[in-house]
Each structure stands twice: as structure tokens, then as C-alpha cells.
């Protein structure tokens, strides 16, 4: 009613609140709201929009019922300075300067036997240690023992290379697609190897499982490669983010087994590469100097069966050179790749013979 009256008298509205309106009336046409009583409400339209003579209204057959009361409908008072609505148009700001308290994550370091017991008794575990200390071997034995006890265990790793070495393993992307995004996990324990390579997208999906009864066996070494292109909504994620995260702590219930004994390489090799990590004597020096030192120690001169390179372009080039070298004196079959298939890091022309080892991709 008030808005109707103000609109028809051309008033300028300054503030519109739940229980009041601040307005400026026009000089010649005032709304006179203070004169309006309840008994006038059913005829208010006649007051502000009188009907033209000899015409009817569309709603003339459904007139409003009269309210028999002389009480005024509105209170009208001149505005004061304190009537103005108080508001702060600035952006919200945090007034407190106290830094939030972050409780440091504490891990319980367990022996190998203790760690095994923790898992057998229904806990989770993180097995860490630098390369060649037997993490995968330790976890594989643990998985075998759990499976023998009737516990359903799934084994996954980020890459095909790592997952191929796991007992009945598959890639983590495959497992997540099947059991998280398009289904529900049927296992009771999830064994994740090479956890340093898991990107944040997969971790976000795995984080859901930490609110279920599922248990985890994690193995990995954060000194090795981190995930390629790990980013969250366009923001790159720090390589050490997962290592420091509460998610890792929650996944392993704070139980850690730290393996330090070399089980793969000989002592010279192990001592050298273990000195490259944080705390080692070669950690602080530039990588070029560390590589030069390695160059002096490791001097195999024959033809290497395995060659590691940075780029795929060099891999393709080196593969072909060594393919020709190793094919000498053998009865070979040439598989020629032409056209679009040659591009990028896909297939390449190769000579094959009985006994050659090829890589599935």
C-alpha cells in the first residue's frame, strides 16, 4: 500500500527497510500517508487513480472489504540523521591478527615387524625408504599374507611400469575409474606403490575413501620423480605438498616403517646415490658436479642394454641406432612404419628377430 501510494505521488525513495521507508515527497503532490486510515484502504485506488466517468474497472465486481477502524495505517515522521541505514561498503577484512594454530603431524615410526602387525591387526601403514631398500618387496609380502588370511587387497600404482611389478596390480587411474568414479570399491585394503607419482586429481578422489572403513598400505620415496603436471584448478601443486599433507597422515593412520638397508644395488652404487638426497654429502653441490663425480666412479665401457634419456626424440633416435647395431648377423624382419604413425613418440620402424625384447605401450 505504501509503495503504491509513494509511486503514484512521484516520491523519491532513498532507503527501503523491512519496517520503514525513507522518502522525499514532491512539493505539489504529497502522498499524505498520515491521513490514511484502515477504513480508507478499500478505496485507496480511487484516491490516487480515480476512475474516468462512465467507465468501469476490471475488478469492480470483486471489491475489497472495508475495515471499520479510524486508526492510521502508517506513522509518518520527519527523517533524522540517525535514521540513515548504517552499512560498511568495504570488502570484508579479517580483524584478528593471531595466526591459526596448526598442530604438527606426528608419525609413529615402527619396525618392520611392528608395521606388519599393525596391518594384520587392521591398521594402515606407510612404508618409506630410498630407492632399492625393498619397499615393494616388503609390501608385496604383506599383501600376500593379508590375502592368505582372506582379506581382499587391491594393488595399484600410478604408472604401467610400476603396476606391472605388483601382485595382481593395475594402474591407479584404471582402479579409480572403476571403483571410485563408476562404482564402489570391493576391497578392504588398498596397496598404493610409488605414491610420490600420484597427482592431486587422483589424491582428491582417494581422499573420499579415507572416510570409509578402507585401509591403506602406501609405499614410495619422495626423493624420486613427482607427478607430471600436477595442478588443481590451474594452480600448480608443490612437489612436496602430499608429503607434508594431513591426507597422507590420515591414509596411513600415522604409522610409518622406514627402510634404510640396501637390498638392490652393491655398496658403492648405493652409497653414491644415497648421498644425493637431503642430508647426503652431494645434496648441496650442483647436479653437474655430482654427475661429474658419478662419471669418474661408474665407467662401464661396453654396449649398454638399457639406455636412459630425457626426451622421446632422442629415445627414438637411440633406439634405431642400437636396433641396427644389435641386428648385425641376425635374420631380421623389418616392420616399416609410415605416414602419421611415425609422428611424436609413437611407433617407429624396427627390425625384429627371435629373442629381441620389445616394450608394450
Amino acid at each position, binding site marked *: 500500500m505504501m509503495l503504491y501510494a509513494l509511486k503514484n505521488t512521484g516520491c523519491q525513495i532513498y532507503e527501503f527497510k523491512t519496517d520503514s521507508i525513507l522518502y522525499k515527497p514532491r512539493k505539489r503532490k504529497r502522498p499524505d500517508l498520515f491521513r490514511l486510515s484502515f477504513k480508507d484502504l478499500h478505496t485507496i485506488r480511487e484516491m490516487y487513480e480515480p476512475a474516468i466517468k462512465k467507465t468501469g474497472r476490471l475488478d469492480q465486481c470483486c471489491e475489497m472489504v472495508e475495515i471499520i477502524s479510524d486508526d492510521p495505517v502508517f506513522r509518518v515522521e520527519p527523517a533524522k540523521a540517525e535514521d540513515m541505514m548504517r552499512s560498511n561498503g568495504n570488502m570484508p577484512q579479517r580483524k584478528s591478527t593471531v595466526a591459526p594454530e596448526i598442530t604438527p603431524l606426528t608419525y609413529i615410526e615402527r619396525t618392520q615387524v611392528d608395521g606388519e602387525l599393525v596391518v594384520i591387526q587392521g591398521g594402515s601403514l606407510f612404508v618409506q625408504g630410498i630407492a632399492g631398500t625393498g619397499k615393494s618387496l616388503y609390501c608385496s609380502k604383506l599383501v600376500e599374507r593379508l590375502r592368505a588370511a582372506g582379506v581382499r587387497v587391491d594393488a595399484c600404482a600410478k604408472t604401467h611400469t610400476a603396476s606391472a611389478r605388483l601382485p595382481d596390480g593395475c594402474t591407479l587411474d584404471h582402479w579409480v575409474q572403476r571403483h571410485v568414479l563408476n562404482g564402489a570399491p570391493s576391497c578392504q585394503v588398498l596397496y598404493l606403490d610409488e605414491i610420490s607419482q600420484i597427482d592431486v586429481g587422483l589424491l582428491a578422489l582417494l581422499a573420499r575413501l579415507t572416510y570409509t572403513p578402507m585401509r591403506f598400505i602406501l609405499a614410495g620415496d619422495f626423493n624420486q620423480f613427482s607427478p607430471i603436471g600436477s595442478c588443481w584448478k590451474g594452480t600448480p601443486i608443490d612437489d612436496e605438498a602430499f608429503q607434508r599433507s594431513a591426507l597422507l597422515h590420515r591414509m596411513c593412520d600415522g604409522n610409518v616403517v622406514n627402510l634404510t638397508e640396501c637390498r638392490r644395488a652393491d655398496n658403492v652404487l648405493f652409497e653414491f646415490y644415497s648421498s644425493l638426497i637431503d642430508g647426503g654429502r652431494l645434496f648441496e653441490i650442483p647436479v653437474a658436479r655430482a654427475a661429474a663425480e658419478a662419471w669418474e666412479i661408474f665407467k662401464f665401457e661396453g654396449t649398454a642394454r638399457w639406455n636412459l*634419456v630425457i626426451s622421446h626424440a632422442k629415445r627414438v633416435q637411440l633406439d634405431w641406432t642400437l636396433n641396427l647395431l644389435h641386428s648385425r648377423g641376425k635374420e631380421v624382419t623389418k616392420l616399416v612404419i609410415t605416414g602419421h604413425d611415425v609422428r611424436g613418440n609413437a611407433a617407429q620402424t624396427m627390425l625384429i*628377430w627371435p629373442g629381441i625384447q620389445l616394450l608394450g605401450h
Partner: protein
Amino acid sequence: MLYTVKTIEDEQVWLVELAKPLSFDQVKSCLRLSFAQTYASIQGNEYDEPLRLHDCAHRFFSRKHLFVGLSRSKQGAFVSLVD
């Protein structure tokens, strides 16, 4: 995963690890030479045979490349590094 060629006959390749033979087209599309691999793809592997680390002077060669590369081998006597 590595596959070893057992025999090649009638445009079919028999592999030790598979019960059925692969056609030449399948071999070309699914298998590749294994003499050289990228550093990024070998994490999780270990090698008994001679291993050579290339690109040691490459601008993208890092401490992690050196660490992962060296730690794949079982014997220091079978390792070498080149530019």
C-alpha cells in the same frame, strides 16, 4: 612390460609371454623397441644388465634424474654416464 619375441612366421609374431600370436600391424602399434627409455618412464624398474645414463649435461637434467637413473641398476660396475 617387456615381451620377448619367440618366433616369426607367416606374418605373425609369437611372444613368450602371450599364448596367441600378434600380427605385424599389432606389433607395430602395440610394441616398441626397448633399448632406450626415458627417465620418467623407468621409475619402479630395476636392471641386472648394463645401464647407461644419457643427457647428463642436458639443461633439464636434475638431481632426481641422476638419483632415479643410478638407483635402477643392481651393479655399479655396469653403470656409465654420457652427455
